[in-house]
């Protein structure tokens, strides 16, 4: 990354709301995958 661009980064700051939402949704999908797997294992 160029020095000029480096200055524009926001180190240590929290993620933006849209990225957090996307992250949560991906986590939900992953969790449901685990649930589906455990259900199919028991049946």
């Amino acid at each position, binding site marked *: *990354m*160029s020095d000029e*661009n480096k200055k*524009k*980064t*926001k180190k240590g*700051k929290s*993620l*933006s709301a*849209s*990225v*957090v*939402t*996307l*992250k949560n*949704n*991906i986590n*939900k*999908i992953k969790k*449901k*995958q685990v649930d*589906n*797997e455990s*259900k*199919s294992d028991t049946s």
Partner: protein
Amino acid sequence: MNTLLDYFILLIPSIIASIAVCYSVLTLKEFKKSQQFNMVNTILGDINELEGEIPLIFQLQTDKKNNEQTDVSLSQLLSRLFNKLDWLSYLVNDNQINDESLKDYVIPTIQDYYNGIYTEYATDDMKKESEYKEFKKLCE
């Protein structure tokens, strides 16, 4: 013999020409700026559209209960998302987007996606050195 009025008459067209040149330069600057805003707007719109596909994956999971299919859909979505971010990063790295206020907005946004999504959910294939070079160059 030249009078003061003659000089003044000669001066007027030069002043008008100078104003016209200044106006053209300003217009060109504004046009470039608006072009950059349009480029960013289009890419961010595409990213929003991609994120809107998440409910379809949920639906697929509920209907089919097929993990393999869900995996494929999710990695396709992530790959398309990273492609868009790579393209946006290229535009920043190549100085095609050079408006400072726009860069102040775009660079932290790209980095959020890198820190929040890419580092956690990218598959091994997506993390290969040859992939998403511009995206990684901007964020690492």
